[in-house]
C-alpha cells in the first residue's frame, strides 16, 4: 500500500538512519506493537464473555468444525511461508520469484478468507447470528476483524504485485495499474465465489470432479469472469521492458511481510484460544 508513501530523506541523504533500522521497518514494528493491544483487547472481550456464558447460549463445540479450522490454519501458514520467501527472493533481486510468491500468498490468503466465508455460512445456517447470542457477537466480531486484516493484507499484496510491473522509464502507468487492479478485484471476487460454492457442493456431493463441475455450472457468470480475468491478468503480466522494482524494494516487501506474518500469528492465538480451548 505504502511502498512509496514513506521515507525519502534518509534513503537519499544520510545513508544510515540513527539506529541502522530502516524507517519503514521501525514503523511496522511500532505499528505491530500497537496492534498487539488491539487484538489483545478484542480477544480479551471474547474470553471474558466465555468465562461465564449465559444460560442457554450456543455450544461452540457443536458448531466448530475442527477440520475446516485446521485446514484454514495450514493455508494461512503456507501463505506466511510464501511471503517470507518473497522477501527472501526480493532481497536477492529475483523478480520472477517475487511475483510468483506474491501471487501464491494472495491465493492462499483468499483461500483462507473463503474458508471463513464458508464457515460463517454454516454457522448462520445453524442459527448463530451476531445479534442472536453473546457468543455470536464476540465470535463474529473477533474473527471478522481478523478477516478484515487479512483482506487489507490481500489488497496490499495485490498492490505490491502490480507495483512490480512499474516501468523503469517514467512512462505514465497509473491508469494501467488501476485497470490491472480492477481486473484483479474481479478475479478475486469471482474466485472466492467459486471456491465457497465448491466447498458447499463438496460438502453435499463429496469430493469429486462432479461437485466442482456443479459449482462452476451454478456460477456461470463468476466462472466466466474468472477465466476472462485470468487471461487479462496474464496479458498484463507479459514480459516487457525493464521495471522499476528490485532489491531496493525489499524493504517494502518486508514491511508487507511483517504485517502478513503478524496476521498469521494472531490467527495462531485465535486458533488455540478461541477454537481449541472450546474442545476441552
Amino acid at each position, binding site marked *: *500500500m505504502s511502498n512509496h508513501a514513506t*521515507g525519502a*530523506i534518509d534513503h537519499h541523504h544520510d545513508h544510515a538512519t540513527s539506529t541502522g533500522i530502516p524507517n519503514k521497518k521501525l514503523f511496522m514494528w511500532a505499528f505491530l506493537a500497537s496492534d498487539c493491544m488491539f487484538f489483545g483487547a478484542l480477544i480479551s472481550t471474547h474470553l471474558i*464473555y466465555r468465562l461465564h*456464558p449465559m444460560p442457554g447460549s450456543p455450544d461452540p463445540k457443536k458448531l466448530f468444525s475442527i477440520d475446516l479450522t485446521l485446514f484454514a490454519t495450514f493455508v494461512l501458514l503456507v501463505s506466511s511461508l510464501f511471503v517470507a520467501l518473497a522477501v527472501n527472493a526480493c532481497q536477492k533481486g529475483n523478480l520472477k520469484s517475487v511475483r510468483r510468491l506474491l501471487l501464491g500468498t494472495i491465493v492462499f490468503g483468499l483461500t483462507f478468507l473463503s474458508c471463513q466465508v464458508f464457515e460463517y455460512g454454516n454457522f448462520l445456517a445453524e442459527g448463530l447470528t451476531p445479534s442472536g447470542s453473546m457468543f455470536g457477537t464476540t465470535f*463474529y466480531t473477533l474473527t471478522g*476483524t481478523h478477516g478484515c486484516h487479512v483482506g487489507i493484507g490481500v489488497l496490499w499484496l495485490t498492490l505490491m504485485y502490480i507495483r512490480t510491473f512499474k516501468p523503469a522509464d517514467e512512462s505514465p*502507468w497509473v491508469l494501467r495499474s488501476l485497470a490491472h487492479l480492477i481486473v484483479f478485484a474481479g478475479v478475486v471476487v469471482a474466485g472466492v465465489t467459486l471456491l465457497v460454492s465448491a466447498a458447499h457442493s463438496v460438502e453435499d456431493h463429496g469430493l469429486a470432479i462432479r461437485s466442482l463441475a456443479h459449482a462452476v455450472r451454478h456460477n456461470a457468470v463468476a466462472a466466466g469472469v474468472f477465466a476472462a480475468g485470468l487471461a487479462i491478468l496474464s496479458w498484463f503480466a507479459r514480459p516487457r521492458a525493464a521495471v522499476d522494482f528490485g532489491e531496493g524494494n525489499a524493504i517494502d516487501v518486508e514491511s508487507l511481510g511483517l504485517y502478513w506474518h503478524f496476521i498469521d500469528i494472531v490467527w495462531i492465538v485465535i486458533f488455540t484460544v478461541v477454537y481449541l480451548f472450546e474442545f476441552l
Partner: protein
Amino acid sequence: MEAIANAGHPGAETHAGKRSWLFTRPTAKTGIVSWLTTVDHKRIGMLYGISALFFFLVGGFEALLIRIQLAVPNNTFISHQTYNEMFTMHATTMVFLAVMPLSAAFFNYIMPLQIGARDVAFPRLNGFAFWVFIVGAIVINIGWFVKSGSPDAGWFGYAPLTSKAYSDQFAGDMSTDLWVMGLQILGVSSVVGSLNFIVTIINLRAPGMTMMRLPVFTWMTLITAFLIILSFPAITIALVELMMDRSFNTNFFEAANGGLPILWSHLFWIFGHPEVYILILPAMGIISEILPTFSRKPLFGYPIIVFSGACIGFLGFGVWSHHMFTTGMGSVATAAFSLMTMAIAVPTGVKIFNWIGTLWGGQLRMSTPMMFALGFVWMFMFGGFSGIMHAAAPADSQQHNSYFVVAHFHYVLIGGSVFALLAGIHYWFPLIFGRKVSEFWGKLSFWLIFVGFNVTFFPMHFLGLNGMPRRTAVYDGNMGWSDANLVSTVGAFILGVGIAVYFTVMIRTYFKGEKVGRDPWDARTLEWSLPTPPPEHNYDVIPTIHARDAFWYEKTHKDEIAKETAEHAKSETAHGGIHMPSQSWFPLLAASGLLIGAILFVNHLFLWAIIGGGIMVLGIYFWASEGPGGYHVHLEKHDDHGDGRH
C-alpha cells in the same frame, strides 16, 4: 525509486514531462494551496496549534455556559439536556481537540528541530494525521448543526447509556454515533501521527545526538507517542464494539442479552488513564525545557527525569481501575489498583524535586514563560496531591463522581497541561514568529489566569467533600453548595478574561510585537541555534551534537563548532544540496474520503459509506504511486528555498 532517482541525479528533470498530470506536485509556497498540501512539519505544527487554540476557546465557551448554569441553585439558564451536551462536548473538546493537538503542535514544530532533523520520517503521513484530526473534529461537532443535538453521554460514554435503547430520543438520533465515529477517527490520527514521531525520534537524530542527549521535551514526545499507540487500541476496540451494537445489533453491552456494561468502563479506562498522562507528559517536557533556560542551569538529574517519565508512562497502564473503585471489583483488586496508583506519586515526585533542584543555585529570570512554568509546578503538585487522595480507595468512594474529582482533574489539566502549553507558546513564540510578547501583558495574563483558575477550582474541593455530585445541571439551595458555586463561577469569568487577554496579546504580538533575533532567551537546546523564523529546511548544515544541552555547548565552543560546520557544509553540497520532500494533495484527498464515509455511516447509510472508503483508498493509492518526490535546496546559489526545485 523513480522519485529518488529523480531527485538524486541532476538531469532527471528531463523525465518529469512524461509524468502523469495527476502526479504534478503542488509547489506553491504561499497561499491556501501551500497550506492544504504542505508536508513541512513546522507548517503542520502551526495548523495543529491554530486549530487546537480555536477548539480551546470553544471548549472554554462551553465551560462558561456550564458555570453560568451552576452559578445559583435551581437555575434555568439552560435545560438539563443542553447542560449534559455541554459537559460532554466541553470535555471531549478540551481533551481531544484542544490539549492533545496543542501538544501535537509542539511535537511537530519543535521536536524535529530539537533533534537536528530536516523533517519527520514520513512527511506526507504527517499531513495526513493532521487532516484526519480535522475530520474527527468536524464529525464530533456536527451535532451543533443537526436535529439530534450534540453527544450527551459524558466524555467517557459509559455503557449502556450510549446504547440505542437509552440514547435515541427519537428515530434517527445520531448524536452518539457522531461521538463514536469522531473518536475513532481521532484515534487514527493520533496513532498515525505518533508512529511517525517514534520513527523520527529514533531514526532521524543528528549525528552525536544519542538517546541520552535528547532534550527532555523530545523524550516526553517519544514516551507520549508510545502511550498513544499502546492505549488508543483499547478505546478503538471499545468503540468498535459499541458501533457494532448500535449499527448491527450485537450484544456487547446489552445487559439483557448477557452484555457487561462494565466491560466498556474497563476498556475505556485502559485507554483513559494513559490518556491523562498523554495530556501531562508533553507539558512536563515543556517545563523541563523552560526551567533550565530561565535558571541558566542544566536540568537537575536529567537521566532520572527521563527515566521517571518512562516509569510514569509504563505504570500508567496498570492503574486504570482507580476510576472504578466504586464498581465493586472486590477487595483484592481494589487494593491492588490503589497501591499501584500511589506508586505513581514516586516518579512524579522525582520530577518535581528535580525541577526544584534545577532552580536551586540558578539565576532565575522571571520572564512570562518562567512564570507560567513555576505556576505549573505549584498547581500540578497540588492537583497531584488530590490525585493521591483519590488513590486511597476508601476515601475515593466518597469523592468519586463528586466535585472533588472535578477539582483534581482541572488542577492537573489546567494547572498542569494548559499552564505548560501556554508557557510553551510564550517560550517558543520568538522562535516561530520572530517576535516577543511584552512582559507586562504576558504577566498580566498570567496573574489573571492564575488567580481566576484558583478561584474557580479551589472551592470545588469543598463542594465535593460536601457531597455535590458532578454532572448535575441543577442543585438545591439547601445543600450548602450555593456560595462555593457562585465563587467558582466568578472565578471562571476571571479566568476567561485572563485567557482573553492572553489571546489578544498573542495576536497583537504576531502583528506588532517587538522583533527579536536568534536565541532571545539565551537558551540551551538546538532549535534556538536557528534563525527566526526557521527556514523551510531547518538546518543549513545538519549539526553534530557533542553534549546534552547541544546549543549551550555550541555557544561555549564557538570556534570548534564553526570549523566542523564548514566541513560538513562542504560534504553536503557535494551530495547535491539539501533534499526536501515535495508537497502533496493526496493526504488531504484520503482524509476527505474518510469524512464523507464517516458522515454517511453515522446516518446509517452503511453501503453508501463505502464511497467514502473508496475515495480514501484511491487517495492512498495515488499517494503511494506518486512517490515521495523531492527537490533540492542549494544554499550556495540562493540562501532561499525558492529555487533548485525540479
